[in-house]
């Protein structure tokens, strides 16, 4: 069972819709037993970093997630804001995140003034390493992005893929059981479906 963590931000329903289409069982929940008893977790999210951390705290999820992800090594996939919440710190609100991966979330400061922020639309990625997430996927995939902040990984070996928007940034990471995608696989047609299917495979 895959639990999509419901912390009142973003669009858990879109992810559930795609998993349902793939025939993968999932539930949208913030219930502690649901989270503890699932095989894997998805942390979705669109919105403000500070609001996200506050919601996780109010739902009592900070300690629980730490235990499940860091001690029990349960696979977790952060999507968009969910990915950023896995980092140590964000410039959006200037506060600490979950800190499951040695990375920081920074605001885009693009040299090219013609590039608009948020980075919104379809873009490509350059994969930097092997991962179960990208096994047997289509060639030349494209993914849908919407974000104003990007992730800076401290360890090069954690970088799964990068994307260029004026400059290269980390659009995907993996550190052991901890996965993050800056784009929205649930809104990226077959290209996103392949990644979600791979994540949910044992």
């Amino acid at each position, binding site marked *: 069972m895959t639990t999509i963590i419901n912390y009142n931000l973003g*669009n858990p329903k879109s992810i559930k819709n795609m998993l349902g289409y793939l025939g993968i069982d999932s539930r949208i929940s913030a219930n502690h037993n649901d989270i503890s008893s699932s095989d894997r977790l998805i942390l979705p999210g669109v919105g403000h970093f500070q609001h996200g951390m506050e919601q996780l705290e109010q739902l009592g999820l900070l300690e629980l997630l730490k235990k499940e992800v860091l001690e029990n090594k349960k696979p977790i996939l952060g999507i968009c804001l969910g990915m950023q919440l896995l980092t140590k710190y964000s410039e959006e609100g200037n506060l600490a995140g979950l800190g499951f991966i040695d990375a920081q979330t920074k605001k885009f400061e693009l040299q090219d003034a013609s590039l608009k922020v948020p980075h919104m639309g379809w873009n490509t990625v350059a994969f930097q390493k092997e991962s179960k997430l990208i096994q047997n996927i289509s060639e030349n995939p494209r993914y849908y992005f919407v974000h104003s902040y990007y992730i800076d990984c401290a360890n090069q070996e954690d970088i799964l893929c990068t994307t260029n928007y004026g400059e290269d940034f980390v659009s995907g990471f993996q550190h052991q059981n901890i996965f993050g995608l800056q784009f929205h696989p649930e809104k990226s047609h077959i290209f996103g479906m392949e990644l979600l299917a791979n994540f949910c495979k044992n």
Partner: protein
Amino acid sequence: MALQPRIIPVLLLHKGGLYKTKQFKNPSYVGDPINAVRIFNEKEVDELLILDIDCSKENKEPNYTLIEEIVSEAFMPVGYGGGISSLAVAQKVFQLGVEKVIINTALQNNQQLLADIGAIYGAQAVVASIDYKKGFVGGTKAYFTNGTKKSGHTPQELAIIAEKAGAGEIILNAIDREGTYRGFDINLLQQIVGLVQIPVVVSGGASNKADFDAAKQAGASGMAAGSMFVYQRPHNAVLISYPRNYFYL
């Protein structure tokens, strides 16, 4: 590098079915919206825009059941417009799996709504639709409520107002061109792109790839089209298509 512009089919809902209008008038039946979305899904469209043309005019809430059915199989970003009159309504629509809400009538009577939605979902989720046409007197003006109510503003003025109010994107919708295949209003598009920082999507009049190229050249972040994706010319027989060689990605 700048992103390639998005090509966005626009689907109009009317009486629960999929319709197409010409210059915002004379809705003619196209088919079942769920079926249309399934086809656009298979064709991997960049984004979909769904507008319910009854809600504001009849002062009713969105058809949540229909939106939910449509979105449950739409594996691309979806924008929805029609009857987004309060934060509570917007929240219900987002919860169904919609990414963006399109605001038009509230630009006239409730600008605070744009900021309120943006505070929770981010400005990128708030799209202002600037519908406009040329009058017999007084030049080109923006209209509200599905083109039925004339505003005192030019489209240029309303674009600036919308950005200030908290819109994260603008759809520039030429009422006179809608359904006519006359090409986009490139002149006004260029002006609006120069006036605001947020992305601008152009709509109304698309006929062929050359129209898309011209809009791209003029700085559009997206091009929306209805007729050319749901009709086959010359007789406007219903045929849903999305020619692969038209997109930029």
